């Protein structure tokens, strides 16, 4: 048998393949979110008075149907997908930035500072944290995107902080950090130039898992009517709208719900795959 190494490599190609498939489909979905509105002849807010609550039909001008107000469901869903992706990514970025700084500082400082900072994380973990987010989201200017972003991001940073702190704690024992300290490299520079690049791998993997979480939290708030407001729509607010009319027009629910499920599923698969690649424990 020629190429026995190839044979052994092909025994277990699943992690890599699943990863690639998920990444490709996600890119396709993102492209759809970006350019989907261009594909549709209808603007998301345009009203077709002749076709109120029309059922979906292939070949029809409104192939995913229309809602009660005669708006095209495909155009609306694509717009919702775009908003959900946008808020999900932005909130993930913010929460990772917070978690990264928090975890790196706690892990590097060690001792009492570390104890206190991680105790705060523990306490927040144990609380019904979403409740505080709901309150934040309702109290300040309902539907304002920055408030929404911050409220959601404030949930996501806890796990990142824990992961980064664990990694930093391990890194701190390494000789190159000792060498940097002994050479007089300032603490801020050690954190920025030596710690952060070395924790980047696992953090990137975890970051991919943060995005679907953030998307779900946004949709959760939007479903409760606390998220983005009309005429803007996210997948969550479309689902909540659709749920109200599901008896007479189920496609209003099925379109955004299906989109959300596929999106979260793909992001979860991607994140799991990346974690397997980067997790030092699975790498042995």
């Amino acid at each position, binding site marked *: 048998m020629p190429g026995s190494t190839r044979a052994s490599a092909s025994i277990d190609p699943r992690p890599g393949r699943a990863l690639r498939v998920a990444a490709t489909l996600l890119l396709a979905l993102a492209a759809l979110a970006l350019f989907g509105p261009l594909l549709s002849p209808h603007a998301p807010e345009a009203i077709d008075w002749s076709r109120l609550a029309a059922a979906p039909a292939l070949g029809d001008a409104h192939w995913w149907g229309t809602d009660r107000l005669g708006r095209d469901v495909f155009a609306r869903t694509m717009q919702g997908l775009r908003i959900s992706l946008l808020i999900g990514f932005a909130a993930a970025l913010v929460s990772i930035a917070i978690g990264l700084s928090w975890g790196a500082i706690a892990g590097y400082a060690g001792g009492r500072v570390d104890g206190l900072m991680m105790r705060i994380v523990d306490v927040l973990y144990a609380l019904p944290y979403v409740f505080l987010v709901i309150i934040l989201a309702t109290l300040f200017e309902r539907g304002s995107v920055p408030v929404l972003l911050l409220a959601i991001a404030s949930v996501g940073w806890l796990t990142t902080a824990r992961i980064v702190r664990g990694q930093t704690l391990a890194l701190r024992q390494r000789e190159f950090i000792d060498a940097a300290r002994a050479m007089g490299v300032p603490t801020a520079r050690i954190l920025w130039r030596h710690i952060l690049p070395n924790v980047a791998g696992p953090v990137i993997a975890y970051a991919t898992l943060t995005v679907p979480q953030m998307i779900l939290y946004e949709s959760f708030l939007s479903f409760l009517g606390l998220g983005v407001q009309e005429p803007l729509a996210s997948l*969550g607010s479309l*689902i909540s709208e659709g749920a109200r009319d599901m008896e007479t027009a189920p496609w209003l629910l099925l379109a955004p719900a299906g989109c959300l499920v596929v999106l979260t*599923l793909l992001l979860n698969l991607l994140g799991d795959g990346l974690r397997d690649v980067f997790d030092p424990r699975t790498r042995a």
Partner: protein
Amino acid sequence: MMMRHVVTRIIGLVPTLLLLVTAAFFVIRLAPGGPFDDERPVLPEVRANLESAYGLDAPLTTQYVRYVRGLLRGDLGPSFKHKDTSVSELIGAGLPISATLGAAALLLALLLGIPLGIWAALRRGSLADRGIALLAALALALPAFVLGPLLALLVGLRLRWFPAAGWDPGALRYAVLPVITLAIPVMAYVVRLTRTGLLEVLGSDYIRAARARGIGRRRLVTGHALRPALLPLVSWLGPATAFVLTGSLIVETVFGIPGAGRFLVEGALNRDYTLVMGMILVYGTITLTCNLLADLLHAWLDPRIRQH
């Protein structure tokens, strides 16, 4: 030793709860608007009367002290919006329903999830294992606000097996869809944690040694491997409670169940300060207690910790 540990941990809850109450109290008051803002225009003197009747004209710190004193007496205060009703009455009416649903969902998830996880771990790499993994991934992508309406549509409206909405304290069938909605994502976590926990333990040296001694696989799992394998699951039970409580907010909205969850959103939107505070306090106490119970259970099951 264990007893002292338990007592210390219970006492440790108090400052955490106080921190929560304090933070929530001031955050809510920071926000613009008040409980009597969006009512039909009221005369200034009527409004002043209302505010002084509820003690809202006092300085914020005085109100805070007054509120905490009330809490010590077990008084959550009057609702600002539900006339002549106390917060304790409102939450007391809804909470048993929410708690029953949550507990039933958690139980269902554990009863089905643990055996499924064990099965998947024992047949690692088989079609069944991969099928379960895929279903779990799918379930994790199905939040309550998607799963709830979908189940109501399919099972409730189309198949007409169970009512799609509503509540009747005596009729179990109203609880079926809400409990399933809550249980499915939790079950997916349970399956995953059980499977990876068991695989990790089965790969460890002492299990290999036991296998080499000729101990059968069934006895190996039930007698040696299962207890340590379930430890990660046990420590997840705390966060799981918070997860279920969050989900119950949605489930109660979707299925029109008169639980306590709706009071949180409703109270926050109406600036019903005492109602929101009451909800945070009650649900906070529940999650913290469940976290504590999970920790203690973990310590009790883990011989390495128990020795200390």
